[in-house]
């Protein structure tokens, strides 16, 4: 049996597990819709009055919806990893003939896929109902959705990297808090990056955040080949960088590991 089949089996089971956990999906959908309602009302007023955004209010709401869709869909893998360590579950997982990192990634991917599908439908229908217009190129929408999956995957890689910090610190929430706030700000969660001061735009482009959120969402509204190419390169580069960091940190972490309990 090819070893990759082990990870595919974990992915399939995680997919099934996330589907059966329908209460969590309902909770996420309600949270997502609440965020969209708040932002819709906020931006209908603010964008119209200030005129700082190049998008019109309808486009801006879709931009935020595409951002929120991916953001809310990303599973809290870093917390699961912290729990694996704190609860001692790692003692079950590590001796198995499978990579802990690979298994965690496959599991996160299963949950991410279900979340992206279910919340994708919720986001699309709810935003369409709120905005009443579809101001984007259909191909741009498809590319944004495809890149949404890749962006979610890259966010999982970086959140796993945060999860590994538990091997040293037992606690991942401070790092995750910083990551999340940077993602909101430099990813352009609520405002396109173009309205930021130049120095912040430059700074943002040295991070993976715009590719995960803002630039990807803007693609549907401002569809062009240059942006697709830039985004493809950016996502690939950050994905490879994240994976390398993950492997190096994991190798180092295993040596100092102290599983709780005993």
């Amino acid at each position: 049996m090819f070893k990759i089949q082990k990870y595919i089996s974990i992915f399939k089971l995680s997919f099934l597990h996330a589907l059966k956990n329908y209460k969590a999906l309902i909770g996420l959908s309600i949270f997502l819709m609440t965020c969209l309602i708040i932002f819709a009302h906020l931006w209908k007023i603010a964008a119209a009055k200030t005129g700082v955004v190049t998008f019109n209010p309808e486009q801006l709401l879709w931009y935020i919806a595409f951002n929120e869709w991916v953001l809310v869909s990303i599973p809290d893998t870093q917390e699961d990893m912290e729990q694996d360590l704190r609860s001692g579950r790692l003692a079950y997982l590590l001796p198995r003939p499978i990579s802990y990192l690979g298994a965690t990634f496959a599991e996160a991917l299963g949950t991410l896929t279900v979340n992206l599908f279910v919340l994708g439908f919720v986001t699309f229908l709810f935003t369409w109902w709120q905005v009443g217009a579809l101001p984007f190129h259909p191909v741009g929408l498809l590319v944004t959705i495809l890149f949404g999956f890749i962006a979610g995957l890259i966010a999982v890689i970086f959140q796993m990297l945060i999860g590994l910090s538990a091997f040293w610190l037992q606690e991942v929430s401070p790092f995750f808090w910083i990551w999340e706030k940077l993602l909101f700000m430099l990813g352009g969660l609520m405002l396109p990056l173009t309205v930021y001061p130049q120095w912040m735009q430059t700074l943002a482009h040295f991070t993976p955040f715009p590719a995960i959120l803002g630039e990807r969402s803007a693609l549907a509204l401002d569809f062009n080949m240059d942006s697709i190419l830039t985004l493809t390169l950016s996502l690939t580069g950050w994905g490879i960088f994240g994976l390398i960091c993950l492997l190096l940190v994991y190798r180092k972490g295993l040596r100092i590991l102290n599983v709780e309990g005993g």
Partner: protein
Amino acid sequence: MNAAIKINNLSKTFIARDTFPGIFGSIKGLFFAKNRELIAIKDLSFEIAAGERVAFIGPNGAGKSTTIKMLTGILHPSSGEVEVLGLIPWKDRHALGYQIGTVFGQRTQLWYHLPPSDTFDLLSKIYEIDPQIYKDRLQELISLFEIEHLLYKPVRQLSLGERMRCEIVASLLHKPKILFLDEPTIGLDINAKLMIRGLLNRLSKDHGTTLFLTSHDTADIEQVCDRVIVLDKGLIITDSSLKDLKKTYMKKKILTLVMDEEHLLLSLSGIKVLENAHHHFICEVDISSTPIDRVIQEALKLTTLKDITIEDPSMEEVIRLLYGTNRNV
């Protein structure tokens, strides 16, 4: 001896960070906390033969779980040598994974919202078990552990005892040569405990599986194991068969006499009266100074006996004595 586990001068040291109490203490601790070496295991050496059933016991913080984690390759030792089935656990963790099983009480490997059958299927893929062999093996374990009715029930709906049976099945699917059990009966009711112990005995008898068990429940040790290694503060304080351990530490017996008289006026050196009323005389006899038959003979001089019962002190008492002896050293 065909050794399943060989440990030679194994030591494990952790670095603990001492901090200060309170809010200001926490802030101070950020700058002035001191690192302290904490010895979890010190120069541990022993061998376990294939098929042996060993209880690895000790008070909290003795280093039991740390040792299990080193034996399963989760932790790297600070020094010393370990061989499990001829492999070095932390170097050959994945290769060893095919040959060992682990059961950690109150920690789960089953997927919470899915039935156990889904986890079993996944594990068969992870351990690369041939589908036909897996089918036969699962059937065998289902009948042994009586879990047919639990197979398709979501794990969240199982009782702790039912879940533990499924956890053990999950750990046995790949037919491990060694099963490491860390508090496998913790939190279970008495029936579930009895069932798990019986199953472990059958497993060892029928398949020759080596059992390495840690537990604070002395009944687990008494009913499952035939050898006991006692650890305290990272050092082995006793390593002997259960029989020898009892012989060494059970110098006292509990004697119960049922007689015609309401109570018995018996006074002898080496006996401690525990109860003397309602036609029952119960005493603890120190057999190193006073033989049991002498106590019975003296009682017969005073009354007619209807019944006699001689009991060993509980395993719990032996363990208490062991820990106590070591602490007094």
